[in-house]
């Protein structure tokens, strides 16, 4: 029998070292493409978060990337997402992929990685992109953020069918749940809205249109300004406050204010939802979230709701739009994987999956994806959100308040709700038009020189 060589101390140490290194070899194989930290918006639809988490986990497993996801809330009193954006930009460390709302890309573009290659490929694949997304996502001609469907929302009209029917307007004829043409909706103007408002107030269904300081209020008044061709600051950064169009909109709102809810000036982003769901409002400008909650909590109200584009004005019809973006921090240590992930998530199949779980709340970036079935299938009533995405025959454009001012000025107009403050001073504070314009001029000149 062959005698075995005794194991020396040196051999034992070698064996132990090799054994200890084995898991490392395994980890290297499992996550060969490194790791990614992703900050996502904490979606209000319960099923939406697990869906995107699963999609990303599947992608990570397939591409051997170890992905960790943080869901960050965003709201009037809970701004974890905004705080994370600010903190990580200052600290130069944090997630690899960060979610931004509306102006975030413009605010933090110095700390973001250009993604022209990603956007170029997607535009080639899916066609032209919404101009508002380009206005918010591009800096000096370069894409700095990818407009994602997750969280992106229009804020069109959501009306009570029965009230408008009594007032002599058939909203389903204006916007049927089938392909149509813009001519059927020529009656849906801001003048019509003003005519219908007193009756709604009298019937205890005052239109839930806010003049507060938060996004819902700012978004719809921005679309109203655009519909009248009014701008506070033009694209070159010049003050255009004292134009006839601006005064016309202010006078319009002064009239409308009398028929809005008593608390319109303190509306926050939940107020219009509550007004509709509680059966106290015949019209709000909102994504279908209010209808969705009404479907659960107030089914009779939900059955009577119809979503369709905003009213038109002399300069056209504009839907308020609040897009969300995914950006890659310039300090990210795995930019290649980050680009791969956001490109993959933006493919039609993934976008449709996410859109379905959000019950059609999320608006795809590309108009070519506005034909998903979800908007035709959702009920009650059948087709209630069919016209939520902008359809080719709607003759409607998207808008963000502050446009077309240079973003550094527009951000301030938006976040300070300057136009809404002007309106409240005029309509509620009964200040003179001249005083209101003087006040605004002083404020906006400050933004321009900032």
């Amino acid at each position: 029998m062959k005698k075995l060589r005794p194991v020396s101390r040196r051999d034992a140490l070698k064996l132990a070292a090799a054994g200890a290194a084995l898991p490392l070899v395994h980890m290297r194989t499992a996550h060969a493409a490194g790791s990614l930290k992703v900050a996502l918006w904490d979606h209000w639809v319960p099923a939406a978060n697990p869906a995107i988490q699963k999609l990303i986990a599947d992608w990570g497993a397939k591409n051997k990337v170890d992905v960790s996801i943080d869901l960050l809330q965003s709201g009037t009193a809970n701004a974890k997402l905004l705080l994370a954006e600010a903190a990580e930009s200052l600290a130069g460390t944090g997630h690899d992929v960060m979610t931004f709302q509306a102006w975030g890309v413009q605010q933090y573009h110095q700390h973001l990685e250009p993604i022209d290659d990603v956007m170029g490929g997607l535009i080639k694949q899916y066609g032209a992109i919404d101009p508002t997304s380009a206005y918010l996502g591009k800096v000096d001609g370069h894409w700095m953020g990818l407009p994602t469907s997750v969280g992106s929302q229009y804020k069109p009209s959501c009306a009570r069918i029965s009230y408008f029917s009594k007032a002599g307007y058939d909203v389903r004829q204006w916007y049927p749940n089938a392909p149509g043409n813009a001519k059927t909706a020529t009656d849906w103007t801001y003048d019509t809205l003003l005519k219908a408002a007193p009756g709604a107030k009298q019937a205890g269904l005052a239109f839930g249109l806010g003049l507060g300081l938060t996004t819902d209020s700012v978004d719809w008044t921005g679309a109203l300004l655009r519909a009248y061709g009014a701008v506070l600051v033009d694209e070159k950064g010049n003050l255009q406050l004292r134009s006839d169009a601006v005064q016309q909109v202010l006078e319009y709102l002064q009239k409308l204010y009398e028929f809005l809810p008593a608390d319109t000036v303190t509306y926050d982003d939940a107020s219009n939802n509550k007004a509709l769901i509680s059966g106290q409002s015949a019209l709000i400008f909102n994504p279908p979230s209010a209808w969705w909650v009404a479907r659960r909590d107030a089914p009779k109200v939900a059955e009577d709701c119809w979503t369709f584009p905003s009213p038109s004005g002399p300069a056209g019809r504009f839907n308020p739009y609040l897009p969300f973006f995914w950006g890659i921090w310039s300090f990210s240590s795995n930019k290649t994987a980050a680009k791969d992930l956001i490109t993959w998530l933006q493919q039609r199949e993934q976008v449709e999956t996410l859109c379905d779980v959000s019950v059609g709340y999320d608006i795809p970036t590309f108009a070519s994806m506005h034909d998903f079935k979800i908007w035709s299938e959702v009920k009650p009533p059948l087709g209630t959100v069919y016209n939520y995405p902008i359809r080719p025959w709607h003759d409607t454009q998207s808008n963000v308040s502050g446009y077309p001012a240079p973003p550094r000025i527009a951000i301030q107009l938006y976040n300070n709700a300057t136009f809404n403050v002007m309106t409240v001073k005029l309509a509620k504070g009964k200040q003179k038009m001249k005083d209101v314009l003087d006040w605004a001029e002083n404020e906006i000149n400050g933004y321009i020189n900032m």
Partner: protein
Amino acid sequence: MADGTTGISADALHGFAPSVRRGGLRRFAQRRSTIAVLMCLPLIALIAGLVVYPFFYSIYLSMLSRDATRFIGLFNYRYLLRSDTFDLVIFQSCFFAITAVFFKALIGFILAHVMHNISGRDQRIWRGLLLIPWVIPPALSTLGFWWMLSGNYSAVNWILGQFGIPQVAWLSNTWTARLWVAGVNVWYGTPFFMIMYLATLKSVPDQLYEAAAIDGATWLQKIRFISLPMLRNIISITVLFSLIVTFANFDIVQILTTGAPADTTHVFATYAFQLGIQGGNISLGAAVSLFIFPILAVFSIFILRGVGRRAREGM
């Protein structure tokens, strides 16, 4: 010796240099003052890291441009002082803090006297009940008030409606909104004043009140000539402490009005948040929040000087 040193003279140690150094080091380490400093070091490090560094960093931030890439000196401060909106913020911050602290102190003072005159178990029950607003997180209290006052479901308006009184848009009129914002702070903060005053009242000798009663003093005279002088220091300190906390308040305004209507209820903290975090102008937000500092410094100097003077007189 009292300071912890041994009192051995240097002459006695002449010729034993290495031992002297070791002994000196040991003595230094054994000094009470050295030990005290060493024991305080963690706290000093904590304050330096969480208070001093952020304070100076925010001063530095407030002097940077909007994108935090250029040094612009005092431009942000000049911009704020020229803004009409910021005038409103200064006014509202002062109105909110002074009104709220005044009523918290007044109601706390009255409640403390009422409590002091309730004896035994009853006092413990009432004291516990009155402390409830203070132990509920202010964000939750504020949400409760918001539901009571909001336009859609206002319970207050519902009750008024039962008596045929028309609805009031509590949070949409500038002055009712300002008063409610201060009112919620009073609701939350009064128990703190009450408990502090009650604790001090318990240390006032009963004989003083008995002697005053024998002399025929009225309740008002007892308060004026006994309670108030005895409580003066604690009133000053609680007022200063509360002013600091109230000036920096954020959650009540953010939840109740978000600064509306038309920016008239914004305070420094909410306006700094609007400009700095929501508006992405961290530098300007830092400048707004630093405005609290000189205001509080002035209050602190006056109040602490009074406390110090009275302490010296009492020595």
